[in-house]
């Protein structure tokens, strides 16, 4: 699993993953914060339902899709975590109509 190498630096922010409060470090991306929290999978695929998690960390692979503050299919590696953010797993394809 993932461990922080310099656990002392940076302030703390709190966000919600699947409704549970998670502590992260200020400046973490949502993907980094979720991995540091010990989760590996953040979504299931629309095609087969197989679990997927953050992989490339640079906005290319689209494996880290999550729902953030009600907006589906956001790339967790491209969004910096913010206090009170509501992050949910992206289960399969999003709904089309609101």
């Amino acid at each position, binding site marked *: 699993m993932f461990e922080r190498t310099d656990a002392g630096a940076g302030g703390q922010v709190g966000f919600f993953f699947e409704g549970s409060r998670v502590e992260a470090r200020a400046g973490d991306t949502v993907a980094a914060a979720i991995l540091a929290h010990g989760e590996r999978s953040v979504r299931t695929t*629309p095609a087969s339902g197989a679990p997927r998690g953050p992989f490339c960390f640079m906005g290319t692979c689209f494996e880290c899709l999550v729902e953030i503050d009600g907006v589906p*299919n956001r790339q967790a590696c491209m969004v910096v975590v913010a206090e009170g953010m509501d992050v949910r797993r992206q289960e399969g*394809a*999003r*709904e*089309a*109509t609101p």
Partner: protein
Amino acid sequence: MRRYDTIVVGGGLVGAAVAYGLAREGESVAVLDEGDVAFRASRGNFGLVWVQSKGDGRPEYARWTRRSSDLWPGFAELLAEDTGIAPDYHKPGGLHFCFSEAEIEARRAMIHRMHNVHGPGGDGTRILDRKEVQDLVPSIGPDVLGASYSPHDGHASPLRLLRGLHAGLAKRTGAYFADHRVQRIEKDGGGFRVEAGGETFSGGKVVLAAGLGNRELGAQVGLDVPVRPLKGQILVTERTKPVLTMPTHVIRQTEEGTIMMGDSQEDAGFDTRSGTGVISAIAAHAVRTLPWLATVRVVRSWAALRVMTPDGYPLYEQSESHPGAFTVNCHSGVTLAGAHAQALAPMIALGALGEELSAFTSGRFDVRAN
């Protein structure tokens, strides 16, 4: 020198469908493909199998298109059984949305003109009012006043279709040569000698299915092929759960859940760049049609070149000066794939195009002095 019954020039949807059909007739076939430098209309296709409005003013085209649509269900099944690759074909019917009374009247007039083309059964296209459209697509925007609907319309995955055709070809007597741009075609006894990719191929017949490349290749075998590019741009969204139960002529949801929007037409030469002007217009029209699309993200866009004849109808012809040399041209590689594989290919195998294709020769472009 390698010898084949038929050499097909072009490995896109047109060439692959004809080659697959010829291989099913028992012919040995070589497909010579230019490579990834080619314009690749088949990779940029929207994926409609579309009947309504095709052939208004050219009954032979209406009948040929309808024949392909009638062949498609069996053709898709055959391809899936043959290769394990289903082209994701669905035939739920299709809608052409109208936003004004004038548009509805124009569609009604078109239906009236085409009424007798398809015989006693008619072609089945009819006008739906807003309420009827809402029953089919509940999420339409307030500006949609009605639609024309045809039960013969459908859609498929152009990429899966292309893969399936190539797989079916490879399984039989077909040989595919990538990066083999054809340099020269010459008569050779009763057949043809074709130079491509530094090799020489020999074939009893040759079929030109090279899209925009047919203009230059046709001239080598006495065929006049006045095709030109017509650019189209497409937008694709992220995947969503199934929401559109049937395609429209400009918006469709794929099997995987992405929503495609398209149908721009630009006379831009060989330029294949996508541009913000047309992209905005496509997106704005899509959002006017289905307002919820505004919240769905676009993840890709591209442009591709349609292969257009002067009147937009297909061009099928066997050369008079070089018998055995055929040319196949159209901008509807998906719609006509069924007819190309199961009706046109058997004609080519027999060495003569059928009477039903006599309206599609280049003679119709000749200017008559009196």
